[in-house]
C-alpha cells in the first residue's frame, strides 16, 4: 500500500466528499431496506433463514434428469431446476453455434442468393422478441404435430408427436469403463498435440496430429467394447394403446415439447447474434494478411487455419461468449411455457409454497450471478492470453 497517496486522499477534500456521500447513501439505502424487511417479516411471523431448504418439497416436477418426487427436499428441487436450466442452455448453445456460424459465413458468401437469405434470416429473427418466438413454437407450430397414433416416424427409431419427441434410450453396461476410456483418450489427444507442437517448433517436423487424435478418439473407446465388457443396447419407443382412442409411447426417452420449443427459439434467436459476430470477425481480418500468407506460399487451407482463423477467433470469441451467457439467462423465459427450469421450480412453485421471497429470490439471482461471473472471469483470462502482445 502506498502510504503517501493515502495521506493525500485524506487531505484532498474534493476527492473525499463525493466518496463519503456515496458510501453514506449506499449504506443508508441498505439499512433502510433491511430495517423495513425485518419489521415486515416480524409482522408476518417469518424469520429469515435458509433452513427451509432441507424441508420436504411435496410438489412434483414434470421433467427431471435426476431422481425426484414430492418427498425430496427443496434443495433437491433447486438442483433439478438448475440441471434443467443447464440442459436447455447447453443444447441451445450447441445449436446456435452451428446455425450462427453457418449463417455468418453465408452472409459473406459471394453467392447473392445465399447472402440475401442469410441477411433476411438475421433481420427477421433478431427483431422479434424472444418470448413471442417461444410462444410461436410452443402454442403454434408444435401444436400442429400429430397425435401419437399418427406420429411422424424416423425409420421407426424415433417419433415426433404433439406430446414430445421420443428417442431411443441407451442401455449401457459397465458405462463407467467406457466413460473413463473417453477421458483417457481426451488426455492422450492433449499430449499428442503437445508433442506435435514441440516437434514442429524445435525440429520443424510435421506430425499429423489431427488424424492421430481422431483415430485415438475412436479406437480407445471402441476397444472397451471388445475387451472391457462394455455393451450398448437401445430401447426403442413403442406405441402403446391405453384405451380405444388413447395412445401413447412407452420406453425410450421423451423430450417434452416445452424443451423442444425453448431450445429451438433460444438457438434460432441467439444464432442471429452469433452470425453477426462471426461475420464481423472474418471481415475484421485484413485483406493484407491473406495476401501476405498467400505470397509466402501457403495453401488455401493453411491460410484459413494458420492466418485467418486465429485472428478472426480473437474477434469472434469474446462477444460470442457474451451471447452464450445471454442465452443462459434468457433460458429463464422457460417459466412462460412451464418448462421446469430454476425460475419456474424455485422462484415460482417453491416461493408460492414457502412464501420466503427474500431467501428464494436471492438464491436464484445468486445462482445466475455466479454463472455469469465465473464465465466472465474465464473470458477475461482467455482475452489476456489471446491479446496481441505488442513489443
Amino acid at each position, binding site marked *: 500500500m502506498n502510504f503517501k497517496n493515502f495521506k493525500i486522499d485524506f487531505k484532498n477534500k474534493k476527492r473525499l466528499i463525493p466518496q*463519503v456521500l*456515496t458510501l453514506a447513501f449506499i449504506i443508508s439505502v441498505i439499512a433502510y431496506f433491511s430495517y423495513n*424487511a425485518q419489521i415486515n417479516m416480524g409482522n408476518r411471523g417469518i424469520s429469515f433463514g435458509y433452513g427451509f431448504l432441507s424441508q420436504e418439497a411435496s410438489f412434483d416436477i414434470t421433467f427431471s434428469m435426476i431422481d425426484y418426487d414430492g418427498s425430496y427436499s427443496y434443495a433437491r428441487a433447486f438442483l433439478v431446476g438448475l440441471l434443467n436450466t443447464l440442459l436447455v442452455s447447453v443444447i441451445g448453445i450447441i445449436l446456435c453455434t452451428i446455425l450462427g456460424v453457418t449463417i455468418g459465413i453465408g452472409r459473406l458468401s459471394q453467392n447473392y442468393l445465399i447472402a440475401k437469405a442469410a441477411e433476411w434470416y438475421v433481420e427477421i429473427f433478431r427483431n422479434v*422478441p424472444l418470448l413471442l418466438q417461444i410462444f*410461436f413454437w410452443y402454442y403454434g407450430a408444435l401444436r400442429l404435430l400429430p397425435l401419437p397414433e399418427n406420429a411422424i416416424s424416423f425409420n421407426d427409431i424415433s417419433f415426433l408427436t404433439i406430446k414430445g419427441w421420443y428417442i431411443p434410450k441407451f442401455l449401457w453396461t459397465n458405462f463407467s469403463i467406457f466413460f473413463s476410456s473417453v477421458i483417457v483418450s481426451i488426455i492422450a489427444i492433449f499430449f499428442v498435440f503437445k508433442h506435435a507442437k514441440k516437434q514442429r517448433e524445435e525440429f520443424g517436423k510435421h506430425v499429423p496430429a489431427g488424424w492421430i487424435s481422431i483415430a485415438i478418439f475412436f479406437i480407445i473407446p471402441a476397444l472397451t467394447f471388445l475387451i472391457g465388457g462394455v455393451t450398448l443396447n437401445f430401447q426403442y419407443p413403442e406405441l402403446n394403446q391405453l384405451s380405444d382412442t388413447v395412445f401413447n409411447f412407452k420406453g425410450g426417452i421423451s423430450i417434452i415439447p416445452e424443451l423442444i420449443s425453448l431450445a429451438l427459439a433460444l438457438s434460432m434467436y441467439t444464432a442471429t447474434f452469433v452470425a453477426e459476430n462471426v461475420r464481423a470477425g472474418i471481415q475484421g481480418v485484413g485483406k493484407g494478411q491473406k495476401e501476405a500468407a498467400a505470397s509466402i506460399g501457403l495453401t488455401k487451407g493453411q491460410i484459413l487455419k494458420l492466418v485467418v482463423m486465429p485472428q478472426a477467433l480473437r474477434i469472434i470469441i469474446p462477444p460470442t461468449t457474451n451471447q452464450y451467457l445471454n442465452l443462459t439467462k434468457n433460458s429463464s423465459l422457460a417459466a412462460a411455457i412451464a418448462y421446469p427450469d430454476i425460475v419456474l421450480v424455485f422462484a415460482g412453485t417453491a416461493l408460492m409454497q414457502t412464501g420466503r421471497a427474500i431467501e428464494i*429470490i436471492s438464491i436464484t439471482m445468486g445462482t445466475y450471478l455466479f454463472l455469469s*461471473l465465473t464465465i466472465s472471469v474465464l473470458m477475461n483470462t482467455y482475452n489476456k492470453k489471446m491479446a496481441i502482445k505488442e513489443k
Partner: protein
Amino acid sequence: MMQFLKPTRDNLNTSLSIGIPLIALSFIDFLSNTFLNSNITSFLPGTLSYFFPLIIGTLGLYFVRIEFSGIRLLDNFNKNVNSSTFNAALTLLIIFILIKYTPPLLNWLFFDADFAGSSKDDCTSGGACWVFVKVWFKRFMYGMYPNPEQWRINTAFFILFTLVGAAFFVPQKFRKYIILFLLFIYPFIGIKLISGGIFGLKWIETGAWGGLSLTLIVSAFALILCFPIGMFLALGRRSELPVIRYSSIGFIEIWRGVPLITVLFMSAVMFPMFLPDGTYMDKLMRVIIAITLFEAAYMAEVIRGGLQALSRGQYDAAKSLGMGYWRMHLLVILPQALKLVIPGIANTFLALVKDTPLIFVVGLLELAGMIGLAKTNPKWLGMAIEGYVFAGLVFWVICYAMSRYSQRLEKRLSTER
C-alpha cells in the same frame, strides 16, 4: 474428352446449348413434381428421382459457367450465383425451396385467409383467420382500458407522434425546445392523460392498461430514464475515486449477471418487503423502475466502450483549456463518445423494447400477454399462430424501423474523414 467438355469461350455455343436445356429440364421436373403431382422421372430409383432436379440443374449450371464469355448477362449471373459447383447447388436449392414454400405461405397469409366476419365460425377457407385479430384488435391495442375512454390513449400518442414529427421538420432553433419538452414535461402530461384522476377525467388504474399501448408506455419511460442513469454509471466506473468506481462496478455487474425475469420477480414479490409496512407502490411503476435499472447497466457498458475509445488527447486538451470535470465531460467527451456508440445504444434500446413482453410475470398484459389471454378464450381456441404472427409482425416493424433509423443516424453524424 474432358477438354472438349470444359466450357470455355471457344465452345460457347456448344456449352450453352447443352447447359440451358439441362437447367430447363431440371426446372420442368421440379415444377411438375411440386404443382402437378406428376413425377416425370419415376423410372429412376427413389432417392435419385428425388434429387434429379438438383443434380441435373447443377450439371447444367456447370456448362453455363463460362469465364469471360463476352455476354454481359451471363457473366454477371456466373459471378453472383454460379461461381463454383457448390454455389450452383446452393443456388438451385434456395430457388427450389422458395418455389416450394412461398405459394403455400402466401395462400395461408392472404389468398386462403378470412378477413370478413365476427366469430370463429366465419373462418372456413382453411387459411389464416384474421377475423381473430380484427375482433380483438382493440384489446390488443388498449388492453382492458374501458372503451369509451380510449380516446385518451389515442390523444396522448397522437400528440407524442406529432411532436416527434415536428422535431424533424421545424428549424434547428426550435427543435431544442421541442426535444426538451418531450423529454421532461410531456411524459407527465401523457401519463396524467392516460391515468386520469384530474380535470374530471375518470381514474383508470394501471391494472387495466395493456396491449400495444402499454408496450410503448413502458418502453418510452424506461428509454428516457435508463439513458442518464447509464451515463452516470459509465462515468462512475471510470472515475478515479475508488468508492464511486467500485460501487458502480458492483451495481453494473449485479444487474448484468441476472436475467430480467428474476429482476421482475424481485420487483413483484421481494421489493414490497423492503418498503415500510402499509406503503404501496404501483405495479407498473415498480416494473418500469426494474426495467430501467436493468437496462441502465447495459447502457453503462455501451457508453463506457465509447469513453474508452476516445484518445487521451481529448481529455488533456479539455483540461488544458481549464475545464473542470463536468464541463469537460459534457462539452467535449460525452458528445464524441456517444456518437461513437450509436449502434450500441440502438441495440440496447431494441433489447429494451423486445424485453417488455416479460412484464407478464407481474400480471401486466401488453401485446403478447393480451394475445395469450385471447387465445385461451373458449370461443377462439386454436388461434395462437395468427395471434403470435400478428404480434411478431408489429414488434418486427417497430424494431426494424428503429435499427434502420440508428444506421441512418450513425451515417449522418459520422465525422470520419
